[in-house]
């Protein structure tokens, strides 16, 4: 709710750790009056894509389809950065870089860490969105 108000308010510590405040502030600046409900639309789009991509990455890993995994993390990398999920973005970036050089050791571990972080981000996003 706070995120949808015209001026940014101090956020609960849990959210603050998951979503970067400066990034959220930039989103607000795209639509200072909130008339276009930009932040809501962006967050909803992110929520939808996160919900879709997280299971996709798990399935791709099971199939051993590293290219599909790579595509998921590439996409998540930039969109998570956009909404301020910096830790998630960093995870994606790390996985993408390893996959680019075909280092597959510990990939499963990294992906499960990514899934955990993804769920946290998802929760944080849902908190920001109106019911």
């Amino acid at each position: 709710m706070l995120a949808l108000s015209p001026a940014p308010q101090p956020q609960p510590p849990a959210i603050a750790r998951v979503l970067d405040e400066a990034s959220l502030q930039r989103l607000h600046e795209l639509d200072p009056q909130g008339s276009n409900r930009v932040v809501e639309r962006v967050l909803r789009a992110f929520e939808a894509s996160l919900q879709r991509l997280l299971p996709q990455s798990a399935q791709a890993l099971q199939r051993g389809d590293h290219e599909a995994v790579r595509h998921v993390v590439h996409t998540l990398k930039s969109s998570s950065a956009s909404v301020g999920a910096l830790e998630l973005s960093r995870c994606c970036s790390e996985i993408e870089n390893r996959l680019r050089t075909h280092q597959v050791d510990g990939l499963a571990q990294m992906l499960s860490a990514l899934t955990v972080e993804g769920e946290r981000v998802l929760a944080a996003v849902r908190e920001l969105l109106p019911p």
Partner: protein
Amino acid sequence: MTPAHALADDTPGKPPEVLLVDDDEVNLLLTAMALRERGFAITESSGGEHALQLLADWAPDIIVLDAMMPGLDGFATCRRLRAMPGYENVPVLMLTGLDDDASITRAYQAGATDFFVKANQWSLLAGRLQYLLRASRTRIELERSQAKLARAQDLARMGSFDWRRAGPGGGSLMLSAQGLRVLGCGPGDNLGLRAILRLVQRGERRSVLRLLQGVVQHSSVLATDVRVALRNGRQRIIHVEAEPEFNEHGHGIGYTGIVQDVTDRRVAEDRIRHLANFDSLTGLPNRRQLVWRMERAIEHARRLGHPCAFLMIDLDRFKIINDTLGHAAGDELLMEVAQRLRACVRHSEQVMEGALEAVGSRAHRTLEAVGRLGGDEFIALLPEIGDERDAQRVADRILEVMRDPVLVGGQECFVTASVGIAIFPRDGGTVADLMRNSDVAMFSVKSQGKDSSAIYSPQLAGRGREKLELESALHKAIERDELVLHYQPKVDVRSARMVGAEALMRWQRGGVLVPPGEFIPLAEESGLILPLSEWALREAARQARIWQNSFGFADAIAVNLPSRVFERTQLVEQLHQNALAYGIPHRMVQLEITETGLMKELQSVIPALHQLKDINVEVAIDDFGTGYSSLAYLTTLPIAELKIDRSFVRDLGVTPQSSGIVTAIIAVARSLNLRVIGEGVESLRQMEVLHRLGCSLMQGFLFSRPIPPDDLERWLQQTVLPRRAPWIGQAGELDLPAPRVAGGRSF
């Protein structure tokens, strides 16, 4: 944030259209919003396939592609759209990841215009898009202007070239595609200077090369026309124009210029020149061209001291052929005559102008020609003759070829020519003088029976000029009121009274009275006789009215008319008009025609005679007895009076033959019921004889000379009425009724 209008496209009101393709919804949404914020019109697409569908019927100004996309990725999409017609040059910006060098390379390989590292720095992205759009626009404008130039050059059959002066290997020549086309080559052909020179016509090659060497040596401007034979065999005229280029030291380093196919223009110019210089009917040089040739010939003859000759050629009887057979036949005749005349000289179509300048060359021979001055008038120019016998020989040849019949409109025609010759320098020093004098010589031939030639002599000119002056003065005589009518009374000696008067024309030219014998023949020759006759008829009517008022004149004034006036349909109408205008009966103006004139044109005069009789205008036959009258005709002609020629009257009482003729004429007149009157009665003796033979009507010096109208009135008052003249006594003794004037009023 920057306001939208500041960053948006330079064309106000129309934001640049962007197709934004990204599979990531968040990114797509954010980028789209950020760019809209900056004045772009964004169309979103979530994948390559979808984007290509959009592009099938809509063209954005710029396309932004995410490189990494499921399905058709950015590279494949870029490659596919570049293959679509119309998308060869649309700017495409590829969005890549940070430090992804491989993608950057792939982006360019796929045909992307530029790449952009994905980040949330929207202003940077917007700036990049603006830059690409501007570059694209500049490129489009350049392409358009190049296309326009190429089109314009194509239309003008023009192309450009660039020649660099070079080192040891010789110069290098670059021709634009249009330039190659002008020279008959395809865009890929390699055409060197040497190869081009080989296209130049063999005869001109050396002089072209010399010209080029001279131009390059002096770094001067090149402008020349060159005749070439292209590889496809076509003969063309190429205009070459080039300006030198210099390096910073002022040394000529080469030339830039154009080549242009000017063949059509030159052909048109040649055609125009031909039309301006040659007669369209006969193809012979026209007056303008002839004058030009004559001037050159005179120049040359003066320089080299030899004579040249002008032959003025005028066809005899051409007008008759034209009038009777029609203009088409006349034209046909002129064409045939032109052909024949041409064969009489060494006729040259073209003059070698350049060669004329060289002193002593024989090039002036090319001036020799026959030309058409207009109508049936031709002139032959002999640029060099030995003496006048050469000219005479050509004239004789001309007369000879003309004598053969000409077949015109399926009919054989005979035309002859009159040729007048004038020779430079003897007969004149200018074209004008020589043309006039050859004309004078030609006229002298005409007046002496035609079909001959004459060489000019000053005596001819004297006569000719006098005649010319007289003719032009006569033209103005009517409007200047210089013409007058004098009247010679006709008397009836039996009754001693005036029974009419003959009007005789006089010309008061600058205080001198010109006798009719000096200007009437000229007037007849020039056609002036028609207005002169009209004037005389009007003036006679006016005088009849004046006399009617002043002394009751009721007879007729006779006016002499040539037969051709009788042929004019307006004659009757004019007499009618005059009678009406002056309020006199038609019969108060009488007409006289000579016996010779009447008989010569009898058939065409007869209708007029009948019409005249119908309106009560009497006709007298003048100079009767000198011509060859057909008595048969005489009986049928509506004639009122015969006038015995003065030559018979003069000899009356001198030779017995003359009284015999007069007796015969009187007998004819009596039997045809015509009045008869004796002319030229100068003595009482002549009067007596005439009277005794049965003719009492007379005119002549015995009674009165032709005198001005006022004098005639005075003559009546002072001589006739008081019966003071010697002839009145004589006549009175013969017959003696009381003296009376016409009209029945006694004075």
